[in-house]
């Protein structure tokens, strides 16, 4: 069973819906028992960094996730704001705000000419896989487009944690992995065939 973590951040329901549509048993939950019994965890969401962290803390989730994911090795896929929350800190809305600190780095706004590159970065953009990994199996050039919608991105301290990048005025982190912790800045649940493949790849990891 896949548990999609319910921490009241945006489109969590659409992740569950997509997982069910492709045949997985998925639930939206923040119950410690249900999270403990899940084989895979997904931390989805759209919204602001600080709200995301505040909501996780209000539900008492950081220590539980630390136990299950960091110490317990449970596969986690974090999506969009979920990826950003893995960082040490986020600069959005008067930051720095403290993140989970599982992937060393800082979440910063795009530093591009906003007259030329409109922010948020919304739409389909192609990624470059920079490190071999299971998440992007069967995803091949030239069709490596995924759906993005964000104004901030993760600047990782260690380049080996970055498994895919994307270009929008600057090269930014499109996906990271550190052992069992995986994350995408794009929305696989909204990325048609490619996105479905990434979700399947993640759920095949045991």
């Amino acid at each position, binding site marked *: 069973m896949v548990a999609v973590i319910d921490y009241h951040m*945006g489109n969590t329901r659409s992740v569950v819906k997509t997982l069910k549509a492709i045949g997985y048993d998925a639930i939206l939950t923040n119950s410690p028992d249900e999270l403990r019994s899940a084989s895979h965890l997904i931390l989805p969401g759209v919204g602001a960094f600080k709200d995301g962290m505040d909501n996780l803390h209000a539900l008492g989730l950081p220590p539980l996730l630390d136990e299950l994911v960091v110490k317990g090795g449970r596969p986690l896929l974090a999506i969009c704001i979920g990826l950003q929350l893995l960082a040490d800190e986020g600069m959005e809305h008067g930051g720095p705000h403290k993140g989970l600190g599982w992937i060393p780095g800082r979440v910063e706004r795009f530093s591009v000419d*906003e007259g030329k590159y*409109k922010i948020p970065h*919304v739409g*389909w953009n192609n990624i470059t896989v920079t490190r071999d990994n299971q998440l992007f199996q069967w995803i091949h050039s030239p069709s490596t487009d995924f759906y993005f919608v964000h*104004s901030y991105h993760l600047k990782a301290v260690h380049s080996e944690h970055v498994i895919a990048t994307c270009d929008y005025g600057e090269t930014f982190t499109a996906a990271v992995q550190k052992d069992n912790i995986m994350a995408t800045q794009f929305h696989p649940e909204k990325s048609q065939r490619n996105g479905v493949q990434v979700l399947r790849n993640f759920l095949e990891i045991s």
Partner: protein
Amino acid sequence: MLKTRVIPCLLLKDNRLIKTIQFGEYRNIGSYIAAVKVFNARDVDELVFLDMSASLEGRDPLYHLISDVARECFMPLAVGGGVQTLDHIARLLGVGADKVVLNTSALDHPEFITQGAGRYGAQCIVVSIDVKKTDRGYEVYRDHGKNPTGLDPITWAKEAESRGAGEIFLTSIDQDGMMKGYDIGLTKSVAEAVSIPVIASGGAGDLNHFVEVIRDGRADAVAAASIFQYTQYTPQDIKQHLIKSGIPARL
């Protein structure tokens, strides 16, 4: 490279899919679920779904209907019509919408844009602007094109942006359903005035219309409706044509 999105727009009235000409002459074109299934199978970039009866009748969005639509969508889904409160937004996101499209409610209460963006993020809030050419120049119209607002589209788009909108859905009422091309001047003036993406809508009838509104009108994305009903062109044909014309698109 960021691709230019091609977005089919589905218009709903009294639970039926319709198309309009200059916001009038409603024509019933069948089942919305069938249309959504076809667009999903065709791997489109995004869908915009507008229920025009909701705000005209002053009722809530049809959540069960959006839920049915969202179940068929593995792509971003923007939903408009009757979205007036934060609770409406919460419920639409809850049934699987990714973005909400605000029109009347944003005009009535511009601070609602800020509230929605504050709670759900700018990426979730699309402000729809319907524009008609009048003796005084371009003017924003409301209530599905019935009533003038006295607002200039550039001023209103900039205000929507400063209040937190993530995208502008810009429709030319004059070009709607005419299939003679987008209003390039209107699109360009708004797209250059704001730094958020502008989706051009109203008037597509031929493959070159898309190229024109992107290249000359500076549109960041293109929406279309009639062309998918009255020609053989699919979203894929449009995107292949864009690529041939040097505009990045997703195949």
